[in-house]
């Protein structure tokens, strides 16, 4: 359990940063997947 707000924030914001970065990468993947065939045509 989190005893202080600081501990809570440290954990949640840390996870958020990692998720944000992962999402960016995943989005690039999704985009390439979506339009990949358009360019090759």
């Amino acid at each position, binding site marked *: *359990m*989190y*005893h*202080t*707000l*600081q*501990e*809570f*924030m*440290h*954990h*949640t*914001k840390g*996870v*958020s*940063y990692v*998720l*944000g*970065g992962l*999402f*960016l990468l995943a*989005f690039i993947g999704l*985009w390439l997947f979506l339009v990949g065939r358009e360019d090759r045509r």
Partner: protein
Amino acid sequence: MTISRRGFLGGLAAGTGVLLGKSGASAHEHFAGYAGRVGLLHDTTLCIGCRSCEAACSTVNHLPPPAVPLSDPSAFEKKRRTTDKQLTVVNRYVPAGGKKQAVYRKLQCMHCNEPCCASVCFVKAFTKTPEGPVLYNPDVCVGCRYCVMACPYSALGYEYDNPTSPRVMRCTMCYDRIKQNLQPACAEACPTGAITFGKREALIGVARERLRKQPGRYIDHVFGETEYGGTSWLVLAGVPFAALGLPEGAGTEPLPSLGSGFLSVVPLVVTIYPGLLLGFYAFSKRKERLSEAEQKAAVAEALARAEEETKKKLAAAAESAAKDKEKAIAQAVKRAIAEAEAARAAAPAGAGPGKEVQS
């Protein structure tokens, strides 16, 4: 790269474990802090301004003794603050325009329950220990001084004269001594009992007891119990806390939570912008394509119309040329006939009927 099904599930489980580890909490909950943590009670009605605490603090922290000797009352002429060389100072306050007796208060890091310094440090150099004190780790500190800037009690000092290894300097609540079951040096040195060390919960009880027992002596409030989320240093006073340089009337909301709301928006920008901006890009490309197509269509139409017109003009020209030609032929025929008639008329009489006009 192939991942075995087991490996995948295992990784998924581990990841979820990290996320869920301690979760269930939310930012709207009240965080009670570590149970049994220590604190100090500073009763300013008992403080006589002897500054023994300053001397004791400098000694245990291996810092130079206070710049102004303890015996010299000129120390109180100006308000001092904690510095990189002095982790605590005692100031004299003369409230109510001199009509009341001078009051002394000891200043130092308040070891907040939700320390602003810890929240603004981008290398997590500060830790609120389970025992209570807030500690600083000079081994990761980059020297940005955001903590010094943010502390609402202006309690932190910085070694500006150290070119290569400057540290943030602040009261440590004598953490090492506490771990050895000793009191902080200031509490031990205080001759009047103006500083009491113990469990924070218990000290709040002690403070409330004093308020109850001698209501005329004190302002009916324990400063530090809830201010900005509460501090480990609790203060009692016989004059308004604002007169002692403390942020009287401070809300109960910890300062870090004022900045937390905005930081939550950061990942939203990262997740929303890519799709949104690609949408704008696609939209502008579509507009461009459509306007290009429109332009092309307009040009093609104009060309087609021009071609039509040219064709019409050519046809008309051909027709009128043909007409002109006909006219010219007709005229030539007419002339030839006229000439022939004239020649016949001019021919001598007696021309036989057999002689036909040669046309």
